[in-house]
């Protein structure tokens, strides 16, 4: 009530606000009203900024998706790339270094990675910016992207690495495991024996088969990258939805919190559905008949 009526409102004024907001009605009436509006995409007004909550979230969503996509690309590129590299010479020194490094990626908490990266690249080396999104280009009203400016890209590097580090390590280990297994298979030996070029054997025959669990994993975690980048976003002051949620929690801005949970669950739901469908295309063996 205090948030709504202002700290200096008298009891009577607070009561007026209560009635005005419909908070005097029984909770089930309030809930039905909420459901009715939510279906229409109306999650109400933010207590703090007095603007529609959905607008607030949609305004922030592109930043979060951009960050999540970059993190995913980094994780896929480096995870699979290094995974293949390691699996080919599992005992060589570089491979051992990479594998040990991947353990750090899995076990270090995100906020520590973020702060360490800021310290090294922004404070000591001074090559990358510490916070924010940098220069953004407005594509449409409410959709800005940092992909097309150098400033935008340089702001993206550290947070994307921070967010993608865990995924990278997981995908690396998954790829390595899968590759080591597949490389022992008879058909790979046959391929080598046929004298196929190594590129062909590794990428076409081995990697393709090793990738199935990797893709599943990557897909399942993409939704989570969008939804749960709260820590990374707050460290780098990334203007995404995670940051919005955190601020909303501090300010007890309930409509924002409720709408955020709804929107992210819908996103995760759809990403998972999409991955399930994609799964069938990548590996025809598991198509539902």
């Amino acid at each position: 009530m205090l948030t709504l009526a202002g700290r200096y409102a008298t009891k009577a004024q607070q009561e007026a606000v209560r009635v005005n907001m419909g908070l005097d009605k029984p909770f089930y009436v309030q809930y039905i009203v909420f459901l009715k509006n939510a279906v229409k995409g109306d999650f109400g007004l933010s207590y703090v900024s007095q603007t529609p909550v959905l607008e607030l979230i949609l305004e922030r969503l592109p930043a979060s998706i951009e960050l999540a996509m970059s993190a995913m690309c980094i994780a896929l590129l480096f995870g699979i790339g290094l995974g293949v590299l390691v699996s080919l010479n599992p005992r060589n020194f570089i491979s051992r270094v990479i594998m040990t490094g991947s353990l750090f990626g899995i076990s270090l908490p995100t906020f520590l990675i973020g702060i360490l990266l800021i310290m090294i690249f922004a404070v000591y080396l001074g090559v990358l910016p510490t916070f924010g999104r940098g220069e953004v280009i407005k594509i449409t009203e409410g959709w800005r992207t940092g992909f097309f400016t150098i400033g935008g890209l340089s702001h993206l590097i550290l947070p994307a690495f921070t967010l993608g580090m865990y995924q990278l390590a997981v995908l690396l280990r998954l790829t390595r495991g899968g590759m080591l297994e597949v490389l022992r298979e008879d058909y790979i030996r046959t391929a080598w024996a046929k004298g196929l070029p190594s590129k062909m054997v590794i990428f076409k025959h081995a990697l393709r088969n090793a990738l199935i669990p990797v893709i599943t994993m990557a897909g399942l975690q993409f939704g989570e990258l969008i939804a749960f980048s709260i820590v990374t976003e707050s460290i780098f002051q990334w203007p995404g939805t995670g940051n919005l949620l955190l601020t909303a929690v501090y300010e007890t801005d309930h409509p924002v919190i409720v709408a955020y949970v709804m929107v992210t669950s819908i996103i995760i739901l759809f990403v998972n559905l999409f991955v399930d469908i994609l799964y069938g295309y990548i590996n025809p063996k598991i198509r539902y008949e």
Partner: protein
Amino acid sequence: MRRIRSTIILIVILGLILTTFTSGLAAAKDSINVAVGSPPQTMNPHGSDSDANLGIMANIFEGLLYRDIEGHLVPGLATSYERLDDLTWRFTLRQGVKFHNGNDFTWEDVKYTFNRLKEPYPVSEFLAFGGSIESVEMVDGDPWTIDVKTRISVPYFADNLHQVFIMDKESTESRSIGDIGQNPIGTGPYKFAEWVKGSYLKLTANEDYWGEVPPIKNAEITPITEPSTRLAAIVSGQVDILQDVPVELFDTVAGHEDVEVVTIPARRAIYLGLGNKKGSPTSDIRVRKAMYMAIDEEEIIEKVMFGHAFPAAQIPDEPTVGYDSSIRRFPYDPERAKVLLAEAGYADGFKITLTGPNDRYVRDAQICEAVAKQLSKVGIEVELDTKPKAVFFPEVDEHILDFYLIGWFDGTYDFGRSFTKLIHSVEEGYGGLNGSDYSDATLDKLLEESEEIIDPAERAAKLQLLNRIAMEEKIAAITLHYQEDAYAVYKGRGVEFTPRADTWILFREISINE
């Protein structure tokens, strides 16, 4: 094989080249970037009385009066004012002022603004102040002279006007409350340019400003909530000024060669509220005094605040009307405290719960812990109950606490107003932040007497008396310390910045000498 490896190396090298190019983007000479700790919430000038919002809006909007950097009231949109009688205030308005949308500033805007203050959720947080306004009228048909009548005597009426920003009647009436809060239109030295929430808020100089057009043309306010990121941002020169250097990181920042730390004693006093319900131990003055004397404020300042606070003997700060420099803190004397407790019949001590916020003031929860530890040494068993401000303040509002930590500074520089909110017995319009339902008839009567005095000097003397009795005789509250505000300024660009006691960041007061 080799090709894969070289591709990866190539990508890494490309990435590094790309970034070295970008980091050298130097800011333009007349631009400035300020990092703040708490993100601005709204640009609706009456929608929030928090300084995090007012301090930014003060660049876009103006009140009838303005406070200069020393805290003195100077003309703003009104060129002069006087108090005709206890209910009437006369203002002469400034002519030739235009709003950012081109509309002329007229007395209608003032009338509209003052009426708007009365509207509750979600328009105004200045309800009590708005409610005290009876009417706004032109004098003798002259649209540049107005009389404002209040319902009751409000001696500090003018002292609040620097933060009651005047809005444009036409554009405010025609827009939704959400739009008003997103796209502010004022008369101030800066125009609102763009606000990407969570990212930045940009202002540009108002070239048509009636006063001096400020030298800094582009100003950017960036909220960075994470302390370590804020630190990195200032040390790397990405921002020019950083507000709220955390006390625990103070030495790290101050020790950095590229950064200068500027401090200013904050106006905010931190104090402990203490109830005096009949029959409770704390209704006995001796017990209150014992608790006061059992708290070692020097230790709190040194160990908890890392030396960045100043002992407070009273709630108001020096420029506030009602501040009395003769008030002294009771000395730290645990032995005397034990004697006093024994005299009051609590030789074995008693139990009390200390409630406080843990995310509102500098090191608030840690201060509570220190107080609890110190009180336990004289036998008072303190149960700690620290919680987020979102939970704590509603409890204050319900006046259900026994013993609580809270901070206060008065935006109107008036102890009379502070007293009505903090210590006055709880009744309609009074004691809103009196969290323990403290009540003392003598003090209340003194305040009421002060409200009838029109002569400012006489009233100030009365308020000083009230302050002295409340602090020394009644121990209405146990004051701890005034906080210190610390700002970090990046040295590289020659930014000249003097912090304001009210924590507002006014870009017209900042300059860059390169």
